[in-house]
């Protein structure tokens, strides 16, 4: 009988979940205002969107810094049981800082610091899906030294290595029912900070005519391998049947590769149209495996089965006056999450992004960049089917509705 109980408890304890679809496309206020296009646009944010664009910059020095406030909401309900939950997530604050320096006519160099991956979701503790997640905070800072060369007048290339420093803090209940003697739900926090690794980016930009720009950019996959992270167990019953004690963990979280191709076209003097196509290679995220150092705690394997996904971005820019540049855009973002793997820590279905923004030229040197994104999700009935109890899949089902409002503000200095 002991074996049966042990098995039951262990099986319930092994489905640690992680963020998915945790790409946060907010890498510049000018670009976001245009639907987050930029692979074929030359501006102070090119160092991220296409490093090849650096050598086309007209200014000797260009510095852009900025940030966003991400106000995201997730609501969950189950029409069978009446369960309802909504997140109370803190405001996410992705930021960027770009510096580009044009050494000579055909060579430019720069440094970029930005946060393209992250997730902050906080549900009320012990909500209906608390066996999958109570809260998660995922953050990664990218540092990217960059060089760019112009090859003739129509072609440029650029790229550089990327250094990543990431952290994750994740809490969920061990299963749907385990508590200590006073009914407090048993839970585990996985915490890993200072997880580092390297990747790279490379781009090419083509200007076949004065008005048309074509660009392509590839960003490599980076696997964040957390070693010696902490697993902290709380409210564990005082029993040899539930031998969960604090230990260390090893786990790997992929930040997938991404390919972008696009074009921009200037027309009627003051107008620019841009189109970007992103392909994100999420299929690397097959499963999240957590290895507990304590051998009495079984390792945790969690199917994710993400699929590659695409984003279609459209942007429009209008140089209204010498003081103001106005921008607007739209994008359609496919979710990498497949049916049956819809986990509540990043409950993302396909979304529509509506963007707008402007640049105000304070002086010849200074610009204020502002943008706004409204991310609209359709209501979706979804389930996560890869959670198991006693070897039996226990789907977590319900209806989700998300939205996000993202205002952003940035400053550009050029000379």
């Amino acid at each position, binding site marked *: 009988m002991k074996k049966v109980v042990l098995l039951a408890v262990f099986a319930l304890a092994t489905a640690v979940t992680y963020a998915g679809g945790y790409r946060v496309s907010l890498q510049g206020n000018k670009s976001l205002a245009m639907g987050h296009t930029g692979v074929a646009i030359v501006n102070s944010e090119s160092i991220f969107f296409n490093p090849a664009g650096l050598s086309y910059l007209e200014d000797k020095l260009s510095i852009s810094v900025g940030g966003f406030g991400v106000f995201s909401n997730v*609501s969950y309900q189950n029409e069978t049981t009446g369960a309802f939950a909504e997140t109370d997530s803190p*405001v996410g604050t992705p930021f960027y800082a770009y510096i580009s320096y044009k050494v000579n006519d055909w060579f430019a160099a720069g440094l970029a610091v930005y946060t393209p991956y992250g997730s902050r979701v906080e549900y009320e503790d012990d909500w209906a899906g608390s066996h999958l997640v109570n809260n998660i905070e995922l953050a990664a800072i990218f540092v990217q030294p960059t060089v760019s060369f112009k090859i003739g007048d129509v072609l440029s290339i650029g790229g550089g290595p990327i250094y990543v420093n990431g952290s994750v803090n994740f809490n969920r209940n061990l299963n749907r*029912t385990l508590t200590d003697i006073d009914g407090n739900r048993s839970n585990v926090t996985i915490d890993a900070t200072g997880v580092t690794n390297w990747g790279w980016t490379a781009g090419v930009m083509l200007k076949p005519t004065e008005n048309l720009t074509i660009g392509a950019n590839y960003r490599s996959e980076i696997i964040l391998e957390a070693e010696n992270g902490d697993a902290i167990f709380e409210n564990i019953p005082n029993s040899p049947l539930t031998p969960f004690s604090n230990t260390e963990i090893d786990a790997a979280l992929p930040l997938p590769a991404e390919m972008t191709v696009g074009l921009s076209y200037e027309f009627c003097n003051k107008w620019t149209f841009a189109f970007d196509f992103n392909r994100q290679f999420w299929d690397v995220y097959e499963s999240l495996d957590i290895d507990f150092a304590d051998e009495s705690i079984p390792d945790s394997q969690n199917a994710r089965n993400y699929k590659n996904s695409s984003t279609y971005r459209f942007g429009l820019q209008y140089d209204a006056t010498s003081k103001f540049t106005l921008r607007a855009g739209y994008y359609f973002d496919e979710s990498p999450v497949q049916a049956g793997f819809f986990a509540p820590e990043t409950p993302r279905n396909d979304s529509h992004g509506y963007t707008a923004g402007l640049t105000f030229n304070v002086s010849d040197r200074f610009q204020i960049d502002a943008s706004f994104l409204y991310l609209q999700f359709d209501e979706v009935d979804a389930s996560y089917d890869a959670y198991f109890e006693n070897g039996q899949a226990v789907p977590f089902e319900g209806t989700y509705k998300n939205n996000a409002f993202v205002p952003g503000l940035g400053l550009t200095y050029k000379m």
Partner: protein
Amino acid sequence: MKNTFKYIALAAVVALASCEAEFDNPVTDEGFFTSGDANLTNYVAMGNSLTAGFADSALYITGQEDSYPNIMAQQFALAGGSESFSQPLMADNLGGLLLSGNQIAQNRFVLAVDANGNPGPAVLEGMPTTEVTNVLSGPFNNMGIPGAKSFHLVTPGYGSIAGVAAGTANPYFARIASSESATVLGDATAAGPSFFSLWIGNNDILGYATSGGSGVDQTGNLDPSTYGGSDITDPNVFASVYSQQVEALVAGGNGGVLFNIPDVTSIPFFTTVPGQSIPLDAPTAELVNSNFALYNTAVLPGLAGLGVISAEEAAARQVNFSAGVNFPIMTDDDLTDITLILQGPPFNLDAATAGLLGQLRQANAGDLVVLTAASVLGTLADPANPLSINGVAVPLADQFVLTATEQANVAAAAASYNATIQGLATANGLAFVDARSELERVAGSGIAYDGGVLTDTFVTGGAFSLDGVHPTPRGYAYVANLAIQAINNTYNATIPQVNIGDYPTITAANN
């Protein structure tokens, strides 16, 4: 200008932060779930330990929070019912009761692992903090009183603190009774129910059953004040007090739900310990049989020949062990007591031997051995005497076996109670939960849910707590769903059911 900008920015931030993701049809909207013709604004539950949320042989906070009335009330709240459901919560999760500082009820069971690594029920150690004389003031929505029989709910003084010490009152009612002379029914109706549930009558047979039929079947005795704790309540007494309760609770047109009485054979207390539980090898069996040879071949036929016992009884009292797993010997108080006869001629047995054989027989497939016999069977009655094995040389006491005759007494009473309950449900248009059939399903094929199958298997089945009688929170959640189904059907309501997989079962803890 600067300030204006600041305020606009602030207002924008507040506006964004309050933009929740709204569903087209939120479950939180009034009217998504409906109460139909039932008025759920003040639900009052009356009953016994099952209604209180009693489990693991004790009443404790987390058990109360998962009582079926509390689960129902939480679902009622989604359908326009009251958000509050007051329960007389205990002071801790130990269970156990103090009367003027002295412990009068044992702490709860938990699943503990012993020194040899074997898990089993153990009483959780600790000094309970729930003091009976510290009377809580109501009204309470949960009027489930552990231990109450049907007639207790209308007995004045059942909540008297003085009566607890004297054994005439119930400590669980005494700690919440509105006065020394209050009745449970009086306090329940004073709570002003708009809707009620009533599940009572289980203890009217259960005390008899769990004590192996050591009490008296009082059928025919219409005065419950003369009953002992382990007696079966007369069905007419039951019908009388039950209809009095229903009448009081429906007064003013209240809706409600009635539960009938499950079969005791559906609960692990009676199904866990097998009848055949004594393993013997051939030489030992032969040795034991030789000890009973005289009883089998001389005493029993002799008594039958004298007409003291019938030939059937003589046959039923034969003791015969064989190699393998055997039925234990036992004392059956429905057998003719031959103790005195055996001490006289022609048997002339000594008093000890005669007493041993007085109402002796070997258990058979028709008997139910109770859970508490597990700690007695096969052990030594006298630790100094290796031959005094309980069930082999020393008969299992009557309290450990519910015989076929006793089961029939229980079944007859339960059938009569259930006829009363169903009749009153129909007559008053009340919702009705056939708990008897549902528990049979649990004990039979089990109830499939999203994480497995709920069965009545002791410890691992999920439905029953460690006392083998009372449900786990998951078992109570299943009960709540049954009631919600019945209410939805009867009152055209759409109250949502819970997912029983979200509710815990037994609690593991070591002292």
